[in-house]
């Protein structure tokens, strides 16, 4: 069976306010049902690419295609297309405080479905299912500011899953999480992918890449794709990872640290 290309980026350039370059000609393709990881050092453009894939910003140059349709401002002026796209694609932001803007967790989870025309009863049913799957039932009537980072991340994931998208985009989903919560999150995403959904994850945490991806794109310092392959191929390519600030090879011994001493310019000791 021929697979369908969900996202295709061809020579995508983007600069914030037209002055601060974030992407310098990115080419990637994401197939339906595929799990893709975008790895790269801080500030290499991963989050910007996710924003482009979710049509929150639009390419300055080049094209981003979703199931063959170019994502442009003109396309999103059509309400039917915009609604259909938002039903199919969900984005989990890096900062969960951005995503949790309602007074309670329940309102936040219901927000997406209600905006997309789902009736209140169905939205409530989805809240119940997600609360059980993510173990957040006790948090539903709490305010997001009362939650821990791990709880916020789970709720943020729930807000995107409540729309029941085919494609999930995740920006640094495990940042700041303890090992147990990280494992739980990976298991949830794995279950989502096994249901035939497409998952695109931006991360600089190489440890989770084999669990999250079938294909990996490595961002270079010049904000383009420096390499790609299976997780095994990419993680074995130390030269590629080192060149792009994803691993650091220690050239000195532990005893060298002990020789180091802080000294302020006016330190007279």
């Amino acid at each position, binding site marked *: 069976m021929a697979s369908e290309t969900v996202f295709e980026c061809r020579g995508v350039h983007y600069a914030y306010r037209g002055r601060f370059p974030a992407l310098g000609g990115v080419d990637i393709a994401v197939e339906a049902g595929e799990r893709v990881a975008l790895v790269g050092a801080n500030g290499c453009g991963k989050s910007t690419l996710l924003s482009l894939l979710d049509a929150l910003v639009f390419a300055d140059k080049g094209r981003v295609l979703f199931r063959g349709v170019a994502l442009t401002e003109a396309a999103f002026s059509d309400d039917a297309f915009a609604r259909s796209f938002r039903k199919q694609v969900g*984005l989990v*932001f890096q900062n969960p405080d951005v995503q949790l*803007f309602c*007074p309670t967790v329940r309102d936040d989870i219901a*927000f997406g479905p209600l*905006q997309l025309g789902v009736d209140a009863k169905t939205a409530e049913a989805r809240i119940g299912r997600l609360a059980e799957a993510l173990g957040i039932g006790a948090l539903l009537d709490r305010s997001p500011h009362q939650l821990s980072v791990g709880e916020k991340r789970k709720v943020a994931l729930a807000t995107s899953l409540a729309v029941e998208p085919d494609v999930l985009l995740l920006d640094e989903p495990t940042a700041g999480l303890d090992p147990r919560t990280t494992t739980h999150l990976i298991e949830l995403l794995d279950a989502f992918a096994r249901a035939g959904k497409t998952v695109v994850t931006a991360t600089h945490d190489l440890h989770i890449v084999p669990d999250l991806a079938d294909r990996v794109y490595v961002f270079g310092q010049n904000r383009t794709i420096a390499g790609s392959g299976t997780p095994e191929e990419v993680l074995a390519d130390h030269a590629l990872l080192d060149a792009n600030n994803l691993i650091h090879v220690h050239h000195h011994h532990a005893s060298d640290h002990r020789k180091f001493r802080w000294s302020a310019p006016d330190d007279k000791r």
Partner: protein
Amino acid sequence: MRRPRGFIERTLTGTLAFFRQALYDDETASRPGLLQALDPRAKAATLLAFLLYALMTRSLAMLGVLYVFALALAAASRISPRTFLVRTWVFIPLFSLFLAVPALFSAVSPGRAVASVGGLTVTEQGLRAAAFFLGRVTVSVSLTVLLSMTTRHFELLKALRAFGVPQVFVMVLGISTRYIYLFVGVVEDTYRAIRSRVGFAVCPQRGQRLVAGNMAHLWMRSYQMNEHVYQAMLARGFRGEPVALQRFRMGARDGWWMGACAALLLGLIGAEWMMGV
């Protein structure tokens, strides 16, 4: 020895204490109790009706009855009498002092003299006007504090929809409340970081510079966050017309409550009419 606190420290700690109090109110509103169990719309509507009556009544006795009623409601809602009295009597002098005190004297309320204070004459009409003003403020503040202490803030906001406030307005208020708490946390962390580096004693000029710098930083952060929150709303299908979950259900208890309140209100009006006030 207690260290004297500067203006900046007092302002910050006062603001943070206010928000901690708001969090405490949310906890009180989550406890089981008479008013907590009611639908917020029924509660807001009935307390508003009593408040309007307090503003219109011409009987001091009726104001007294309403105040006793408010105290009874606080007790039935498991609010400790001390907490309730402290919360209400913080505001009452604030609202009433400047208007009630001048009203005592003949210059504002001419009439039969009953006493003289420092060359100023206190009149019977002045005493009555001041008592009415104080009584109305006391009842109004008590009812408002009762509503705020027994209703979670987001429910209070949602209840506004029942009074015809547009959804977009309610949503903006809700988002603002949510992010005020976030930025209060940022301010608290910044204040702690400053104290960890420069200690407690900051000269006023330096303190002003620190505060001004941090206000600018906070403004930039809130502006950035504003953009990102809007993107997060768009990502979940927001197209300019918000739709929100309404989970309020009027039950038999709310019906009984509204019936009892209507009966009490009619009883008060009837009693006042029979007294010929």
